[in-house]
């Protein structure tokens, strides 16, 4: 059972124990952060010493063994380096999705094998159903506002078969209530939101520290290739951004494209943010590869709407999607998850 010290995984662990499973609690140590043990941020939030102390306390309360697994090398190679490389390539990567895929499920499964565990469990809000044929189906959680099936979208049968999501059927208030009933001190802890390894949410600084060329000033062009201003480092911009462009124009301008090879920013009006469709690489499919023409709903961010669409092409490596109506939110580097109703059928990285 992956335990972060938060409410969700704590209650999930309790439910497994109640369900008669032999449970081992673990916290994954992913990121060392800075060295100052007196720094204020070391006392709260995800992936801190404080959170492992909370998880350890809950495990003790449940009378289960508890360990902190060192996954720092894997995390650095698979998530942090990928994050910086993605930014440097003009993309807006989604490190949480990468972390889920490579660390919280794949690397974790490997460790679970080494400890002879049959299942891994997490505190995500999503449902995994096993049908009579032995196939597992990943579905949205019952609490629509908390649904986290999007961040699990890249899992395949290989992982899903061995994953338990004990609170997937529950709604958040009920989870908090259960935590309080169990006497868990974490019952009122706030949900974590920010990217765990970036301090103070300053992505630009994090990227620039590791890829200094991302701080170089460069030109801003409009849709027609006319230079309309200068930017102060591509690390500071993402597609869809309006603030911080420093351009006076009759209509509000948005970043529509990041041209990393030329260190240039392309801006345009709001309508230019809408796309007819998109392509994706690094495809994963929860079951078989869907056929062209299949109706799907494509979700492009966590906690956003899924856009009705159809599959233009799909194979083991990637897919192409056509929206039913032009839609915003196509951000290269972000993950697109495809749904059939409330079931996840696959995922990929937007190109």
């Amino acid at each position, binding site marked *: 059972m992956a335990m972060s010290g938060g409410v969700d995984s704590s209650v999930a662990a309790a439910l497994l124990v109640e369900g008669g499973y032999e449970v081992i609690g673990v916290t994954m140590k992913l990121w060392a952060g800075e060295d100052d043990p007196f720094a204020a941020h070391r006392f709260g939030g995800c992936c801190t010493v404080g959170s*492992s102390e909370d998880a350890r306390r809950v495990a003790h309360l449940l009378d289960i*063994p508890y360990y*902190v*697994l060192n996954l720092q090398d894997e995390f650095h190679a698979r998530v942090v380096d990928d994050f910086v490389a993605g930014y440097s390539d003009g993309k807006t990567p989604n490190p949480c999705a990468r972390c889920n895929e490579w660390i919280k499920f794949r690397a974790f499964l490997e460790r679970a*094998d*080494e400890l002879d565990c049959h299942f891994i469990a997490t505190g995500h809000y999503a449902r995994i159903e096993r049908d009579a044929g032995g196939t597992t189906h990943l579905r949205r959680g019952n609490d629509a506002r908390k649904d986290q099936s999007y961040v699990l979208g890249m899992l395949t049968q290989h992982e899903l078969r061995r994953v338990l999501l004990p609170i997937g059927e529950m709604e958040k208030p009920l989870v908090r209530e259960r935590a309080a009933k169990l006497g868990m001190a974490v019952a009122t802890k706030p949900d974590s939101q920010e990217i765990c390894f970036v301090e103070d949410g300053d992505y630009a600084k994090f990227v620039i520290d590791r890829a200094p060329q991302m701080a170089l000033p460069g030109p801003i062009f409009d849709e027609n290739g006319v230079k309309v201003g200068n930017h102060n480092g591509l690390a500071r911009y993402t597609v869809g951004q309006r603030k911080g462009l420093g351009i006076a124009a009759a209509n509000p301008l948005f970043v529509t494209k990041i041209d990393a090879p030329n260190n240039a920013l392309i801006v345009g009006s709001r309508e230019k943010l809408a796309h007819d469709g998109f392509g994706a690489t690094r495809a994963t499919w929860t079951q078989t590869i869907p056929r062209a023409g299949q109706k799907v709903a494509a979700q492009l961010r966590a906690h956003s709407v899924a856009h009705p669409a159809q599959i233009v092409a799909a194979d083991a490596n990637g897919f192409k999607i056509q929206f039913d109506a032009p839609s915003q939110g196509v951000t290269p580097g972000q993950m697109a998850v495809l749904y059939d109703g409330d079931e996840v059928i696959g995922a990929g990285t937007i190109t």
Partner: protein
Amino acid sequence: MNRTRIYFDNAATTPLLPAAREAMEPFWNDTFGNASSPYATSRAARMALDGARTQVAKLIGAHADEIVWTGGGTESDNWALLGVAFANLGKRGHFIVSQIEHHAVLESAQTLRELGFEVDFARPNSDGVVEPEEIARLMRKETLLVSLMSANNETGALQNVAEVAKICHENGVLFHCDATQSAGKLALDVDGLQEGGGRREEGGLGFSSPLPPPPSPLDLLTLSAHKIGGPKGIGALYIRRGTKMKPLLRGGAQERGRRAGTENVPAIAGFGVAATAARCDLESNAAHLETLRNRLENGLSEMEVEIITQNAARAPHISSFIVQGARAESLALSLDLAGFAVGTGSACASGALEPSHVLAAMGYAPQQAKSALRVSFGTQNTVEEVDEFLETLRRLRERR
């Protein structure tokens, strides 16, 4: 919840000896006085303090007044380095510490740099031994102190303390030895064996074979109680009379003004008894530990396992080995689930295990270092436990 049935991590800490526990008992309540006060309960506490001081002094052939109580080995290590630095703030100077020291020494050395001192880190050879020539090579005329442990806590490899002490002595440089792991396992005398120079009745023994006896004295030496059957939170720093030192903790006249703070009388009483037991039973304990270790290593030799520093002279209680192709972290956790406690490098603040700096310094690749386990025996361990461990390890290896 699973329980630890077989405890093989005695280099981390040891269970409290019943005699030590008994010695501590009166000082929680009956004789609770502050040892610095003049009334009856305090006088009794003071007597316990001084009695224990003699007991610990005897373990290393020191004068009782050269033993100063500290909060443990970590404080002793910090103090040895920083205390010498504080006494030389005027002109600064140079320190030599080995790369295989405990973090208490390594991180204090980092602080020395922040204070404006220069520090060189002496490298070990591939057997985990810092050669005296390496120390001599780094020696400068501004060198103030050399710090080298007697037995490494991860590999057990014995360091050539006698030879290094001699080099220091000849150069007029202070020598600090962290004896946390060797105390109670190997005979040790702070005076070495100089002709007519030994202060102990039985004469200075130096380290027992195969090393020659140390010909030169040590100036500073770290001891910890809980590695020899004493309580946690108490240690000592041996400080040779006349050593140019300054206090680390200030604000009281305790310990003759060398270390401020009300003394932990119960723990000190326990330390004294543990030190006596370690001294009196040294030979039989060492023989028992060696029997256990040999049995373990004979068993391991039948598996795909590389024993670290097998060619070096080692403390009798420690055996580190690389389990080829296995992740030590998972192996240690599986062993825990099966009821065994073994060591795997040091833990960070959150409890995650970090790869060993000692193995890295010896030239092991990170991947190999991540496959290293440490078994360290205590006098309470038995041959049957070793056999059960080997059996379990074999089963875990076959699982994959």
